[in-house]
C-alpha cells in the first residue's frame, strides 16, 4: 500500500457546487405567509363541512352563507363604515399606548427608580383586564370615544412597556460595550444600538399590544354600543344577534378575524421579514 495518496485538487479553486439555490417546493414551504394561507384554507373547509352537516343556520351558518352576508354587508357599505369607526378608535388608543409605553421605558432605561416604577406598575395593572375598567371609564369620560380610548390605552401600554423593558435588559454586554466604544451620544446609543438590539422583544410587545387592543375594543363595543347606537364592529355583531341575523353575526366576527390576520401577516409579518429574519435575530 502506498504511504501517501495525493489527489489532483486545487485547494484554492471554488467549484460551482459549493452553493446552489434551494429547490422551489422547499422555498415555498419555507414561506411563512404561504404556510398560514394553507392553514386558513383548511379551517375554512372544516367550517363549511360542519355547517352543512349541522344544517342549522341559527346556531352555525355555513361559511358560504356567512360569505354572502359578508358580501352584502360590504356592498351596502355598512361593514366598511363600522370597520372605519372601530379602526379609527383603535389606532388612536394603540398609538397613545405606545407613546405611554415609550415614555415609561425611557424612564426605566435611564434610572433605577424609573425601572422600579415600571416594574411595579406593570405587575399591578398588566393582569387587570381592560374591560374591567370600562364601568369606571364610563363614569369618568362618559359615553363616547374617550372611554374606549382609555381602556385601549390600558390594554396596550403595559404589555408594550414590559416587552420593551425586558428587551433592553437582555441586550448582550458585548453589544453594549461595542456601542460605548463608538463614542455615541446617549440618544444615539439608545436609538442606534439598544432599540435595534432589543427589537425582537419590542416587535413582540407591539404584536401582543395590537391583539389586546383589538379584542378589548370589540368587547367594549359589545357593552358600550348597546347604549350609544353609533358603535363599530362590536356593535354590529350585538345588533345582528338581537335581530337573529346569525349569518351577519358571523360575518362581523369574520371581519374582526380578517382584520387581525391581515394586520398580523401584512404589517407585522412584513416588518419581521424585513428586520428580524434578515438579521438572523428571529427566534426559530
Amino acid at each position, binding site marked *: 500500500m502506498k504511504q501517501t495518496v495525493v489527489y489532483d485538487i486545487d485547494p484554492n479553486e471554488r467549484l460551482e457546487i459549493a452553493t446552489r439555490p434551494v429547490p422551489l417546493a422547499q422555498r415555498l414551504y419555507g414561506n411563512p405567509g404561504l404556510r398560514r394561507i394553507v392553514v386558513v384554507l383548511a379551517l375554512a373547509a372544516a367550517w363549511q363541512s360542519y355547517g352543512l352537516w349541522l344544517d342549522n343556520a341559527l346556531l352555525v351558518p355555513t361559511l358560504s352563507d356567512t360569505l354572502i352576508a359578508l358580501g352584502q354587508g360590504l356592498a351596502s357599505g355598512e361593514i366598511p363604515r363600522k370597520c372605519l369607526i372601530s379602526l379609527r378608535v383603535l389606532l388612536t388608543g394603540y398609538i397613545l399606548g405606545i407613546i405611554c409605553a415609550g415614555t415609561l421605558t425611557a424612564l426605566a432605561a435611564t434610572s433605577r427608580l424609573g425601572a422600579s416604577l415600571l416594574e411595579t406598575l406593570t405587575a399591578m395593572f398588566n393582569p387587570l383586564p381592560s374591560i374591567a375598567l370600562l364601568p369606571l371609564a364610563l363614569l369618568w369620560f362618559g359615553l363616547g370615544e374617550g372611554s374606549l380610548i382609555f381602556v385601549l390605552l390600558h390594554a396596550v401600554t403595559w404589555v408594550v412597556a414590559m416587552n420593551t423593558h425586558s428587551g433592553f435588559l437582555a441586550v*448582550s454586554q*458585548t*453589544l453594549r*460595550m*461595542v456601542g*460605548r*466604544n*463608538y*463614542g*455615541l451620544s446617549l440618544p*444615539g446609543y439608545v436609538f*442606534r*444600538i439598544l432599540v*435595534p*438590539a432589543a*427589537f425582537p422583544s419590542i416587535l413582540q410587545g407591539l404584536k401582543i399590544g395590537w391583539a389586546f387592543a383589538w379584542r378589548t375594543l370589540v368587547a367594549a363595543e359589545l357593552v358600550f354600543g348597546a347604549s350609544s347606537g353609533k358603535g363599530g364592529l362590536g356593535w354590529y355583531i350585538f345588533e345582528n344577534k338581537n335581530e337573529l341575523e346569525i349569518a351577519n353575526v358571523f360575518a362581523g366576527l369574520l371581519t374582526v378575524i380578517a382584520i387581525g390576520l391581515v394586520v398580523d401577516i401584512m404589517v407585522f409579518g412584513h416588518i419581521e421579514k424585513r*428586520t428580524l429574519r*434578515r*438579521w*438572523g*435575530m428571529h427566534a426559530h
Partner: protein
Amino acid sequence: MPASAVAAPVPPGENLLAVEGVTLCYTTAEQIVTATYRVDFQVAAGDRFILLGPSGCGKSSLLKAVGGYLPTTEGHITLRGHPVGRPGPDRMMVFQEFDQLLPWKTVKQNIIFPMVSSGKFTRAEAAERADLYIAKVNLTRAADSFPHTLSGGMKQRVAIARGMAMEPDILLMDEPFAALDSLTRGQMQDELLALWEDTRCTLLFVTHSISEATKIGNRILLLSAHPGRVRAELNDVEQARGDASKTRELESTIYRLLFGDQAAEAAAQAG
C-alpha cells in the same frame, strides 16, 4: 483623507500608551477583588504588545481599563499624554465574542457605522475605506451579508477590519481568537501579522496562549495572578521569529517565569 482635524500619528517607536502604577478592583456581592496591583508598562507606536498570563491575572481588566470601561483605583493610564476617559473610537476594541457585530447591519455597514458616527470620516470616505479593509481581510464576497450568515472566523475578521479601518491610536484585542477552532486560529494569526505589516497599527493584545503571544507579539508583558502583577517584560521577542529552536526556548522561558521552575520541569518531562 480624514474629514476632521485629527492629531498627527505618533511616530513609530515613540511612547503612545503609558500605564503607571495601575491597581484595578471590582466589587462582587461579598468581596472586593483586586484584579491588578500597581502594574506599569508602556506601549510604543507600532508595537504589537501582548498581555500574557494565566486566568485571574487581570489582563482583560487591564485592557478594559485602557478601553475606558473600568476606572482605575490607583495609578494613571495616559494615551498620547492625555488620561483616558470614557470608551471612545480612538481605542477601538476587538472582543472575543462573536456577537460583537451589530446583527442589523451588513458586513460593510458594520465597518462604515463607527467611521461615520464618530465624525472621523465622511460617508464616501468611509465606504471607500470599508471596501479596502474588507478586501484586506478577504471578505469581499461577504461584504453585503448579515453577520448571522458568517462563520466565527469571518465575524472576527470583520471585527478586526472594523477596528483597523477606524485608524484608532491603538487597537485593543481581547483574546480575539480564543473562541475559534485551532486551524482557523492559526490562519487568523498569520492574517493579523500580514495586516500589521500593511498598516503598522499599534496593537494591545490579550491572550492566555504562550504560542500565540510569541507568534504575534514583538513585546510581551507577563503577569502573575491573584492579583495581577508584572512578572516580566520581554522586549526581544522578535529575534526568535522564524527560528523554531529559539521560539521553543523562549516559550519555555515564559513558562518558567509564569509557573516556576518545578512546574516547567514537570511539564517538560510530561511533554
